[in-house]
Every structure is written in C-alpha cells, then in structure tokens.
C-alpha cells in the first residue's frame, strides 16, 4: 500500500485551494474503486502522492439536475445514484443502461461517473453514451472554471487534459427526446465485473415519416478514445432504417476502428464483433427486427 496523508475538504473551494497548494502531490479520491487498486499495487504513477483529498462526501458534487433543457450530473454522483434518477431515466435511458453494467452493486455504490471519466479507461462503460450526447465537462480550479468536450478531454488510454489543480465538477449535455431510439449493447451476456471489452452506444431521432434526422454512434473500447463515428452516422442520416443499411453501417464502423488502431492481434476477433454490435444496437434503437 502506498502511504499518504488524508484530508476530507468540506467544500469545493477548500478542495481547490488544497489542490492548488499540493498539485501533483495530491490525488483526488472520488469513489476509490480504481485508486484503491492502484494504491495496493503500488502503481508507480502514484509514487509522488503525499496527500489524498477525499471528495466522496462533497454533496455539491453529487447533484443531478435538469435546467432549461440541459442536464447536469455532478462528477461525484455514484452509479447507483444515476441508475435511480428519474430525469436520466426519461431523457438519457441508454446512459442508465450503460451504468447498470458497471462493476457490481457494491462497486456502483461507491464508483462515480467523474472518476470513470478521470481514469480514462478505454474499457469504461459510462463514457460512450456520454460521448454520444456530445457531453461537455465543467472543470474547476481555484482560478475559475472552463468547459471542454468530453471527447476532446480524453486523450488516450489513461490520459486526459486535466491540469494538476483542476477538478471535474460536472458533466453536462442537452436532454434528448424521450421518444427517440436509444440503445447500449455490451458484448456477451450481462456479466458483472467483466470490465467492458466492447460496447456500443447508439441514439437515433426520426421524423413522423420515419426518416432519420439525428444519429449518434459511439463504439466503446474498440479504440483508445471513444468518439462519434461521423462517417457511419451520415450513412443513416436522411434515410429510413433497415436491416441491410444497419449491416453496412456496422461494417463501416469496424473499418474506421481498424483505421484508427491499425491491424492488431485482436483485429480478426474485434472486427466482426464490433460490426455486429453496431448492427444490433441500431436495430434495437429503431425497432428493426434482428435475424431477417
């Protein structure tokens, strides 16, 4: 176990002041579900840590609210809290589906969405739907706040653009149309604790004639950073959803994935899997029958 001092700030201001003072020597502790594993393993990236700042009790960071069409989730909201939230249930159901697959009930009681974003694991379950909703983050430091798109914030596996004096304060996105189609599919049967190896978040909005007016497709863990695959999305925009079209879009997504990661030992396995997950997610979101 790495050794450190511990402080539990009573407010965000106090936390930011301490962070400003200690910078790289301080480590934020949200749910602890990743950090405790790293402390125990004496992960070398934590060797300079002198102080743990426990933000798990900061209620200001746990607020989930809907304000003029925009939803804001405090970074300290736990997955259990998110799953039970009626606003999210109505306006971002695929995000809830994704959060339900995180860890185990015990992990969901402590793990937080901000922590999940901060650790930037490519295997994160909660990130793809947030990227699909073009979420932005509010980052706070003692100097003020700044906003950044989630998909820009995560740079690579385990790397983000956070500064040493900054805290992720909240995640914000526009509420989606409850009547639109959503889907989050994860590889294999739902299995607790298997950290996401592959998943896809999909959102489809259509007009009264069934023509697609807005579409978001975000594969998770297929690439180091979850991004919307615009080329694939454009194939559906202005069209009527169909099985064949979804199949072609799935192939396009896996093609793009290989474009980003290059061919790897796992490619022959991942390529068809991602294509089929995308197809399934689109079918589910638009009510097109599987197995035609």
């Amino acid at each position, binding site marked *: *176990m*790495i*050794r*450190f*001092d*511990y402080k*539990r700030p009573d407010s965000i201001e106090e936390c930011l002041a301490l962070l400003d003072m200690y910078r790289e020597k301080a480590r934020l*502790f949200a*749910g*602890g*579900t990743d950090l*405790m*594993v790293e*402390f*125990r393993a004496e992960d070398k990236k934590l060797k300079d840590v002198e102080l*743990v700042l*426990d933000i*798990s*009790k900061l209620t200001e960071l746990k607020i989930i609210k809907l304000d003029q069409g925009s939803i804001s989730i405090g970074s300290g909201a736990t997955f*259990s809290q998110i799953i039970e939230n009626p606003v999210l249930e109505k306006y971002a159901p695929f995000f809830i589906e994704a959060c339900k697959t995180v*860890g*185990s*009930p*015990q*992990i969901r*009681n*402590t793990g937080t969405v901000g922590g999940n974003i901060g650790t930037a694991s490519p295997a994160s379950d909660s990130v793809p739907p947030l990227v699909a909703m073009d979420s932005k983050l509010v980052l706070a430091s003692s100097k003020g706040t700044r906003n950044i798109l989630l998909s820009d914030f995560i740079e690579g596996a385990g790397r983000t653009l956070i500064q040493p004096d900054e805290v992720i304060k909240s995640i914000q996105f526009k509420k989606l149309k409850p009547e639109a189609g959503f889907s989050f599919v994860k590889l294999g049967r739902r299995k*607790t*604790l298997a950290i996401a190896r592959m998943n896809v978040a999909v959102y489809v909005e259509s007009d009264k004639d069934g023509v697609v007016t807005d579409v978001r497709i975000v594969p998770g863990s297929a690439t180091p950073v979850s991004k919307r695959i615009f080329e694939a999305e454009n194939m559906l925009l202005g069209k009527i959803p169909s099985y064949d079209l979804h199949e072609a879009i799935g192939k396009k997504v896996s093609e793009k994935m290989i474009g980003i990661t290059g061919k790897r030992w796992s490619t022959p396995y991942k390529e068809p899997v991602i294509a089929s997950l995308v197809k399934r997610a689109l079918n589910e979101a638009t009510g097109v029958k599987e197995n035609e």
Partner: protein
Amino acid sequence: MNKIKLVMTVNKKNVETEIEPYARLLDVLRDKFGFTGVKEGCGIGECGACTIIMNGKKVNSCMVLAAQAQGADILTIEGVENSDGSMHPVQEAFLEKGAVQCGFCTPGMVISSYHLLNENQDPTDQEIKEAISGNLCRCTGYKQIINAVHMAADNMKK
C-alpha cells in the same frame, strides 16, 4: 504521516481507534477490532468477500479507506445475528440449504442477502442473482445460495 482518530459505530457499538491515513477499512475492522468475518479475497473489488453495510449501503471494505468511515454506521457479519445471539434467518437458511461449502464467500453472501431482504421481502430469482452478483462463490454454483435466500424470505414472513 499523521495518525487519524477514527470514531464510528460497528454492529451498533460506538468504537474509537487511531488509524494510519492510508489504512483500508477492511484491515482496521479485522486487525484493530477483530471482525475477522470480513474476508479479503481479491483485495481489488471483484469478489465481494469483504462486503459490509456502511450507512445503509453495501460496499467492498477493501475499496474504502478507514478514514472515510469517520462517523459511519457499519454492519459486518458479526452484527447480523439476532439480539439474543441466535442465528438470523438468513444464516439458518444458508446452513439448512447447503449454501456453505468452504465458507470463504459466506460472510459477504450473507451480508448481501440480508441487505436484499431488508429492502425486498419477496425477491424473485432474478432479484436475488442481481443482489449477489458482486459476490463470487467458487464452490456452490449459486443454486443453493438462491434457494437459501428464498427460504429465509419465507421464514422471515412467518
């Protein structure tokens, strides 16, 4: 490193001790207070052998710093028995239904089942599976555990 004075309630008793700021709650419960029913299986949040109830929520005590338990209300397996010292219906049912083999997962399983039955007096198989999904058992195959939870639910209604 400055030691921290920790005050909390464990199994309805107020306790107090000095801890290292980096100590895990799991170790403090076991080593300082002798609650060795709290087991360490994996130490990384995957097996649930260290499950306790903290402020009404079940958590893995290997994932919690002892310092976070300041003022907390904690229940370990040692606090599950009835006030007269007899076994809780969940414990009885586990024995009755053969839900205990090597027993290493049992404290965590019982805590998760107990927590479920406090919230849901009549759980379905699916709800039981969900409730124990963070608790791994290498021996029983889970069937006996699920049967035990049903039996406990029935007995608790009587």
